[in-house]
C-alpha cells in the first residue's frame, strides 16, 4: 500500500514539471512584448520599460527565467503582482481560505443532496420520484452556474432579503454561493449514485440478503449503499477539484473575495505574474486532490491490487 502511494507520488513529479513549464510559457507565448502589454495605455519612458523588464526577469535567457520561476515557486515565491506590487503568494494566502470555505460548503451540500436523491431514485426506480429526481438532475447539469447564482440572488437576496447580495463577512454571505455550486455538483453525484445503486441492487448478494428475510431498510443501507459508495466517493472527490474551478465564476457573480475574483482582475489588468501564480496554484491543488482521491479509492476498494 505504502509502495503504491509512493509510486503515485513519484509519477506526479513529471506532471508537475510539465504544468510548471506550460504555466511559465503562458507569458512567453503572449503575442507582442509583455512589457508593452502590461504598460498598455500608460505613458512610459525607455528607462521605465528597462526597469520593468529587469523587475520581471525578462532580460535573462529563457531557460534561466524558467529555473528562476520554478526555484522561486518551490520556495513559495510566485513573484509580485503588477497591479498591486504585492507578492502574489500573499494575495493567494489571503484569498484562498475564502475559496476553500466555499468549496467545502458546496461539497457538503452536493454530497448529501446528491447521495440522498440518487439512492431514493434507485430504490424507487421507474416511479414518479425517480422521474422527478432524474429530471431535476438533468436540469442541474444543464444549468449555467452563473445563472443559477443570479436567480438565487434575485429571489433570496433582492426579493426576500434573507441573505446579503454580495461580500464575505458573515456565514450568511456563504449560503447562496455554496448553494449555487453545490446544487449543480449534486446533480452529477445524484446521477452517479443512482446508476451505482442500480448496479449493486441487481447483484446476487442482495438477492441473498433479501431471501434471508432482512428488512428492506437493512438491505439498502447496510448491503447496497456501502458497496455502491466506492465509485460514488471517487466522484465526490473529483467534484472537489471541479468545484475549485467552478468557484471562479460563482465568486464573480457574488463579488466573493476568493481566488476566482482575483483571477478575473488579473486577466483584465494583464497582470501575468498573478495569472501564472493563480493558475499554477489551482492546478497543483487540483492534481493533489485527484491523487488523494485515487489513494483513498484504492484503500476503500479491496479489489484493487497494488502491483
Amino acid at each position, binding site marked *: 500500500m505504502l509502495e503504491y502511494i509512493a509510486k503515485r507520488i513519484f509519477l506526479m513529479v513529471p506532471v508537475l514539471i510539465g504544468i510548471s513549464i506550460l504555466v511559465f510559457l503562458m507569458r512567453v507565448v503572449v503575442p507582442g512584448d509583455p512589457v508593452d502589454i502590461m504598460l498598455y495605455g500608460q505613458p512610459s519612458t525607455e528607462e521605465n520599460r528597462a526597469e520593468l523588464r529587469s523587475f520581471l526577469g525578462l532580460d535573462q535567457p529563457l531557460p534561466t527565467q524558467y529555473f528562476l520561476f520554478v526555484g522561486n515557486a518551490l520556495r513559495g515565491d510566485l513573484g509580485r503582482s503588477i497591479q498591486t506590487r504585492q507578492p502574489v503568494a500573499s494575495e493567494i494566502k489571503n484569498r484562498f481560505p475564502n475559496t476553500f470555505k466555499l468549496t467545502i460548503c458546496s461539497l457538503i451540500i452536493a454530497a448529501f443532496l446528491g447521495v440522498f436523491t440518487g439512492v431514493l431514485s434507485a430504490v424507487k426506480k421507474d416511479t414518479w420520484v425517480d422521474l422527478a429526481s432524474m429530471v431535476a438532475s438533468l436540469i442541474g*447539469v*444543464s444549468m*449555467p452556474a452563473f445563472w443559477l447564482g*443570479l436567480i438565487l440572488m*434575485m429571489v433570496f437576496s433582492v426579493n426576500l432579503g434573507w441573505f446579503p447580495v454580495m461580500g464575505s463577512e458573515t456565514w450568511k454571505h456563504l449560503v447562496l454561493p455554496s448553494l449555487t455550486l453545490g446544487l449543480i455538483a449534486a446533480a452529477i453525484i445524484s446521477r452517479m449514485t443512482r446508476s451505482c445503486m442500480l448496479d449493486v441492487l441487481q447483484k446476487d448478494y442482495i438477492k441473498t440478503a433479501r431471501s434471508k428475510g432482512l428488512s428492506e431498510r437493512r438491505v439498502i443501507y447496510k448491503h447496497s449503499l456501502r458497496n455502491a459508495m466506492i465509485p460514488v466517493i471517487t466522484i465526490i472527490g473529483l467534484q472537489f477539484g471541479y468545484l475549485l474551478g467552478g468557484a471562479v*465564476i460563482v465568486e464573480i457573480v457574488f463579488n466573493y473575495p476568493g481566488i476566482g475574483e482575483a483571477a*478575473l482582475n488579473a486577466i483584465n489588468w494583464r497582470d*501575468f505574474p498573478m495569472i501564472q501564480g493563480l493558475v499554477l496554484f489551482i492546478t497543483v491543488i487540483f492534481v493533489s486532490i485527484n491523487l488523494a482521491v485515487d489513494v483513498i479509492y484504492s484503500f476503500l476498494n479491496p479489489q484493487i491490487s497494488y502491483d
Partner: protein
Amino acid sequence: MTAKKENEERNTGLSVGRLMLKRLWRKGSARIGGGIIILLILMAIGAPFIATHDPFEMNIIGRLEAPGGEHLLGTDEMGRDLFSRIIYGSRITLQIGIISVGISLVAGTLLGLLSGYLGGTFDLLFMRLVDILMAFPGFILALGIVAVLGPSLQNAMIAVGISGIAGYIRTVRGSTLEIKQEVYIEAIKAQGAKNRRILFRHVLPNIISPVLVMATLQFPAAILSAAGLSFIGLGAQPPTPEWGALLVRSRVYMELAPWLVNFPGVAILFSVLGFNLLGNAVRDVFDPKLKH
C-alpha cells in the same frame, strides 16, 4: 431493446447509419433533445424573419420596458429588444458549439490516431504531454488560454476547443491501439498499403462511434463554458447578443428588470438541455458499455 429484436433489425439490410438512427429515434430523450436542437437551428436560420426588431438598435426612451406590448420579452438598459437579441444569439451559441467542438474533435482525433498508430517513444512522450494537459481543471485551462490570447468571442471558442483536445486524444489513441492489432489491419499492411490509407480508410471508420459520443456530450459543455467566459467579460464583447454576455449587466438591473436575468438564462438552459438529452441517447445507442 431485446437482443432478438436487434438481430432482426440487423437482418433487414439497413445500413449501419440508418440502423443507429432508427434506434436513436426510439429513445424519448433523443426525440425531445433533437426537437429542441431543431428549434434552435430554425431560430438561427430564420433569425431575420423571426426577430421583431433590429437586435442592435438602441432606444434610450424605451429603456428597461417590461415584457408584453411592442417588446415581447421587454427591452434592456439601452432600449434594445430582448426577444430579437435572444433570437440572434442562437446563431452565436450554435457557432460556439460547432467551432469549439470542431477544434477539439479534429485536432484530438488526428493526434490520437497518430499517437496510437505510431506507438513507440513518440506515443510514450506524447501521452505524457496529454497527461499534463489533463491535469488542468478544464475551465482554468480555458481561462489561462484566454488570458494569453486576449478576451474575445473568437478566442473564447479557441480556448474551449483547446481545453477539450486531450480527452479526444486519449479515447482515439486507446481505440487505435486496439484496432491496430486486428488481423485485417495486418493483412492490409501485408498487401503494402500506405500508412495514410490504413489510418484514414481502415482505422478511422472503426473508431468513429466513441468520437461521435464524445462530440455530442462535449457540445453542451462547450456552450456552457463559452457562455461563462462571456458572462465574466472574457468572451463575446458588447454589443454582441451572445446569451452569456446578455446576462452581464442584468445583475445591476435585477430589481428593476428581472426579465433581463430570466430570459437569456432560460435560453441557455434549454439549448444545453437539448444537447444533453441527445448526447445521453447517442451514448446509450452507440456505446452501450458506457450506459448509465
